[in-house]
């Protein structure tokens, strides 16, 4: 791979190595978190790495720019802006250490995926974002792709105007799949959060049980030993779960991450539909112009306004001929527009489908990783519980060894 065609990811080690709290005003609660991005050349590890500080909204701006500019690309997603689908004891504070850490991981992933994408990686805004302190915002602003009205209209139009869904099955399926998948994933996330709540309460009840056993042991002789041991192990059982549930919460971040991709898919398909619509509009316009021109040329429009006009203003053959020529050149323009639109659609489709295929592979891999981690985590929770209950059980067997 030549230097020009390599991605940023090929050339650099990219990390978000640290975070800092900054204040936007004197007030203590007006604080925000910045993330330290470090890029080190792979080729020359001794070189000093390039460091920049960025906050979450910077990432957002960059991403919106990429989405608008490269509308066929499935742009990697950011961690969620507001925390959702958590169990009641989960970390709710956006600025807490754990939450910031979880965000850091996903932001790092975002950067790495963007930099691994050949098209996105080549964008000057991306390169400036990573490698220079300032300048990226300027590039984004002057690119005029973040035109607010334009970004609002497509989905607005599609939702209200009963827009005809694309006939292209591949895009249609992708769209439906994205909607359905998003729904089921959110259902899973919701159910998991409620389950975590119940599990936490269940473990807590065992705290009380441990206390009861400990108190009871003081009034018993032979049974007292066993009760005391059991009480001790019940306490340790009850204390296990919180840490694991937090870990499960962090794991769910990755599932939410996957769900966010569904929205990206949807907007790519909507862009496709917009282009297709555009294309067909051009063709319709062309058709209309052609019909008008032909009708004019053959003088069939006897009862139209134009016919009256020509009679009134005394059109002669010369003006008529000029008019036809104008119309012809107009038609040629329209033909060009059509061809362009057609090319745009075809280009878009081709690239988008490549993106979709690539996304599918990546999604499967990531899903596998997430589900596998989930299984392993559940196994670890069960193992810790097994250890406690084995000890509790053994407290009540005859001939026990001292702790």
């Amino acid at each position: 791979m030549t230097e020009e065609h390599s991605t940023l990811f090929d050339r650099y080690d990219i990390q978000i190595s640290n975070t800092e709290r900054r204040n936007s005003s004197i007030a203590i609660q007006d604080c925000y978190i910045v993330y330290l991005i470090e890029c080190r050349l792979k080729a020359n590890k001794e070189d000093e790495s390039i460091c920049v500080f960025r906050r979450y909204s910077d990432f957002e701006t960059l991403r919106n720019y990429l989405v608008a500019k490269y509308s066929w690309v499935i742009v990697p997603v950011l961690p969620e802006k507001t925390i959702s689908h958590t169990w009641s004891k989960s970390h709710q504070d956006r600025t807490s250490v754990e939450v910031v850490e979880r965000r850091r991981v996903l932001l790092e992933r975002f950067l790495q995926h963007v930099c691994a994408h050949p098209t996105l990686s080549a964008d000057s805004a991306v390169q400036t974002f990573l490698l220079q302190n300032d300048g990226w915002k300027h590039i984004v602003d002057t690119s005029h792709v973040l035109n607010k009205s334009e970004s609002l209209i497509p989905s607005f139009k599609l939702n209200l105007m009963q827009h005809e869904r694309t006939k292209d099955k591949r895009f249609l399926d992708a769209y439906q799949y994205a909607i359905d998948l998003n729904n089921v994933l959110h259902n899973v996330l919701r159910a998991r959060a409620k389950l975590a709540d119940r599990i936490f309460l269940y473990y807590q009840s065992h705290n009380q049980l441990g206390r009861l056993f400990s108190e009871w042991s003081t009034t018993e002789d032979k049974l007292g030993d066993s009760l005391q041991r059991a009480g001790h192990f019940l306490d340790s059982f009850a204390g296990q779960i919180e840490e694991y549930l937090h870990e499960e919460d962090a794991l769910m971040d990755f599932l939410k991450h996957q769900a966010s991709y569904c929205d990206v898919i949807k907007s790519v398909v909507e862009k496709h539909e917009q282009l297709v619509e555009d294309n067909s509009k051009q063709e319709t316009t062309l058709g209309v112009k052609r019909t008008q021109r032909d009708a004019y040329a053959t003088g069939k429009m006897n009862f139209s306004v134009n016919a009256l006009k020509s009679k009134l203003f005394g059109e002669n053959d010369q003006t008529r001929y000029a008019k036809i020529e104008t119309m012809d050149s107009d038609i040629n323009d329209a033909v060009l527009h059509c061809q362009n639109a057609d090319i745009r659609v075809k280009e878009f489709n081709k690239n988008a489908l490549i993106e979709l295929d690539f996304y599918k592979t990546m999604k499967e891999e990531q899903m596998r990783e997430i589900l596998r981690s989930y299984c392993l985590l559940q196994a670890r929770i069960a193992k810790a519980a097994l250890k406690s209950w084995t000890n509790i059980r053994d407290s009540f067997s005859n001939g026990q060894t001292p702790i």
Partner: protein
Amino acid sequence: MDDPLSRALREDEQGISNAHENGQTTPNVADPDCLEKTSSLSISHSHNDWILPSTNERREEVEVNEEQTKIYVGDPKKHKSNLDSFITYLVTMQTYNDGVQINETNVRRRYNDFVWLKNLLDVKYPFNIISPLPIKHTLSKKLHVIADDGEFIRRRMNGLQNFLRRIINNPVISIDPSVQLFLTADDEALHSAQQQPNPTSPLTPQMTSSTSNPFRQPIGRGKPIPSEFSRTDNQIQMLQDNLRKLERLSRKIESDQIAIHTEEEHLLSTFKQWLDTERKYDENDSLVDTICNAEQKIVDNQDDLLRTTNTKYIEPINEYVLFTGVVQDVLKRRAQFADNVTASNNEEMFDQLTIANETIKADVQRWTEGKDKELMDLFHSMANKKVDFYTQSINAWEQAAAKLSTPTNHR
């Protein structure tokens, strides 16, 4: 055939191996001196120093020349006779000498027969701790499982077995002719014995006036006179309190478990929805399928665990609470009798009181040992169930993780 009775039978067969430990008793008939020694010792103690005999030391079981008796209650069978329909249980008694079986008797008895025997013993031995019978009707709300007849019958059989076992364990009561009749006689002999008028209580009416009511508050007679039994009374009361707390807490934990189970089932259904979505669009469903299978196993295992929590753990605790009530009743009866004796100053009654005191002390010791063992077993088996459950969970999840490690091929 899968009616509740045969199911109970099948499950009971599994329980027979457990019953081995439960049914085995070692009545100290070989060592009557030991019993007397402890009782004479306790008389010489001063009032305030009398302590509940410590059961910490484990006496070495002397196997030589020792007769052992095992009792089993099983094989429930439905009977329809005339207007009645009831269940009988097979009561098997096996006697061993030095580990060799020398005798076995089998009789069929119904619940009412047990009730007859208990009522008889209650009257005849007012100062002995007679085990309660399993409850006639279950009123406990089974939130999770509809009252499973098989489970109820199994609980009852277990309770009846405990009842007989404890009776046999008592050297005085086990040789009572009614008990022997109950265990060995054929139906005719039993019926005719049941027609006999109820035996009179050895206590004349003036000796005891209290009726057996486990929930009645003790009669306050101003400042209680400290007796050698008041320490026992306190200990029993504390035990009862702890058992009550344990029962309450166990029910709470059970409802927590049920709540978890509901949410797990819900989570499973969302996984299944996910699976359907993948299949609908011809996507690779193997990943989600694996998760679904693992989660299904967890749900099933939880189901199993929950089904037995109430009957195998919570109800036995409840029954032990009632059992402590029985001990309290005996102590109250004794206290009442003692008061009457002091009041009447009758020499013969004083002797009877002495005998009663000794009987109670011996019984309380026996009862305490039994309680220790039975509660240990109960907690042990409940914890063991949890151990099994978590072992199965680990297997399910590790299997799933292994499946998810190897990249699957697209169809």
